[in-house]
């Protein structure tokens, strides 16, 4: 065939089954990777982010499981047994000290569970209070960011996809909410909602954590979705001009289908990253409010309220202040570092 270069004759050899040697070229040298796997691999390599993840997981597991087997509860005043006068020897214990009756038990050879961080001025085991405080802080951060995620994604994708008047109206609302001073509004709304909600949640499971935290969630739902929805809108605006959306529309796909199947999956990484970074900011807000006395209801502790209570006696009991402070900083720090790691691993624009 080589001699007649410009002939239209077809070479039958081109249509023969491939030989084994030729097939070797087609063998995959390594399995194809997906976007998710690729990102995970980068995340594993990032030591700082990985250690942060371990810290977060450890703290979370502790806050969930420790209260299950811990012999003391967060509200029990150990010196205050029913039918007996209050035993003051249980209050203000230093770490690993015991109350009078406990010391007697130890002398009798029994094993008494130690108060690792001592007790507070009401004779409550401080370790378990810190654990519960961590639990509250983490829960607030987690649920608040889920609320923000859902509302922000829904509104942002609607606004970005439909455009026009819908977009205009939503974006003006976003502009207004964006320029509201958030902390003031949080305080204002949680005060007011707290007063209204107190009667509504009486007797339900929510009573223990208190109306302030519920109203904090409501405030998050009302105000904090805006930056998320702005982000999603921007993503959608650039994504909807892509060819695959055009082709989906050409084959008759409806708006909801395109949003759910094409647009949201393609901006999911941005969404998850900003949701992860939302958690520390929610924890900040909660501890801030608790510190001002507008957070969880007593006797339920939160890291902020523990620090706030400790402020009065910080000279004689510095560890009451230092422990919640360290825990909250550790949580926020590792969440921030992990969020940064996620962004580095999953944001394709930064991978160039």
């Amino acid at each position, binding site marked *: 065939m080589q001699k007649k270069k410009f002939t239209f004759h077809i070479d039958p050899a081109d249509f023969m089954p491939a030989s084994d040697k030729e097939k070797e070229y087609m063998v995959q040298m390594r399995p194809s990777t997906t976007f998710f796997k690729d990102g995970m691999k980068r995340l594993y390599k990032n030591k700082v982010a990985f250690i942060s993840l371990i810290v977060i997981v450890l703290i979370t597991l502790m806050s969930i499981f420790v209260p299950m087997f811990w012999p003391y509860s967060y509200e029990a005043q150990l010196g205050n047994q029913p039918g007996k006068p209050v035993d003051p020897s249980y209050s203000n214990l230093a770490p690993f000290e015991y109350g009078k009756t406990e010391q007697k038990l130890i002398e009798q050879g029994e094993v008494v569970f130690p108060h690792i961080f001592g007790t507070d001025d009401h004779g409550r085991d401080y370790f378990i209070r810190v654990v519960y405080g961590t639990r509250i802080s983490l829960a607030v951060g987690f649920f608040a960011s889920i609320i923000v995620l859902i509302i922000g994604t829904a509104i942002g994708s609607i606004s970005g996809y439909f455009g026009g008047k819908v977009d205009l109206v939503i974006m003006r609302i976003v502009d207004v909410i964006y320029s509201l001073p958030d902390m003031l509004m949080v305080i204002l709304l949680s005060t007011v909602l707290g007063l*209204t909600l107190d009667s509504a949640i009486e007797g339900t499971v929510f009573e223990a954590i208190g109306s302030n935290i519920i109203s904090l969630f409501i405030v998050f739902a009302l105000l904090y979705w805006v930056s998320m929805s702005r982000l999603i809108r921007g993503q959608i605006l650039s994504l909807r001009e892509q060819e695959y959306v055009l082709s989906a529309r050409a084959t008759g796909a409806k708006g909801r289908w395109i949003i759910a199947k094409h647009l949201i999956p393609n901006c999911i990484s941005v969404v998850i990253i900003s949701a992860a970074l939302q958690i520390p900011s929610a924890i900040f807000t909660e501890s801030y409010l608790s510190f001002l006395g507008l957070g969880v209801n007593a006797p339920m502790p939160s890291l902020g309220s523990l620090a706030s209570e400790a402020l009065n006696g910080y000279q004689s009991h510095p560890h009451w202040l230092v422990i919640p402070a360290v825990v909250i900083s550790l949580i926020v720090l590792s969440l921030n570092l992990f969020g940064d790691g996620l962004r580095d691993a999953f944001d394709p624009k930064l991978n160039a």
Partner: protein
Amino acid sequence: MNSKTLFYIFKRVLLAIFTVWVVITATFFIMHAVPGGPFVGEKATTPAAQKAMEAKYGLDKPLIEQYFTYLGDIVFHFDFGPSLKQRGRMVIDIIFDGMQTSLVLGLFAAGISTLFGIILGAIAALRRNKLIDRIIMVITTAFVSMPSFIMGTLLLVTFANVLPTNGSSAGGMILPVVTLALYPMAYITRLTRSSMLDVLGQDYIRTARAKGVSGGRVIFGHALKNSLIPVLTYVGPMLAYIVTGSLVVEKIFSVPGIGRAFVNSITGRDYPLIMGTTIILATLIVIMNLLTDILYKVVDPRITLE
């Protein structure tokens, strides 16, 4: 200033006015949705006395009428009514009193944080991946992750014996100012660093170096000037927040500022004071945001306005 810029500014001012109106309206109706009313907690009030009190403060009129009176008083007389709990004082006077302290505190903190933030950020960027950069980044990361109340209490505990801790005296301002300044300083450092690294990679820096401009001129005349634009967008709103939002710091160091007035008004349910403080602080923040946006455009003509 072409007509497009003017139109943009006009639009932004309208939006700002609208936002302030939303704040006033929302605050008013939210506060009036509270069950009970302001005088419920009062000791020894007979129903008749309560009626008289409500009549005195105009609380017996229809809600919508109260709203327009309130709005009118604010717009035309800058009057937020009398305080309910601090008898004989007007809300606006209480706010101005607190404002003076908070303003001094905030301006000092903002100045310190901006100055040191930019310097540290520039050093970190110029010595990228060197030891000094690492140290600066570790410290600022720690500061950014620490809530202000923890920073404040830790400073209080550490320096309680060395420095005065009562915020109402002049020397007592040191710790609150430092507490207020640390977080924004850390943030500005990080912002300046990343923005400066970005600028240092630009072509015009290479051009400047290639044509023999001295190192100092490149850094100060080209790199630093251009990398400050993102910093500017942070400093504007920060100034407003630092002046208004130091609730926690004022509580820790018992500074008699506006933040403490706000917290006290909430725990004391002093309705007109809550509303007045919210509205004034919100307005300040809105104005600062507006100025930042406009300034942003003036400083960097490349930025296109929507």
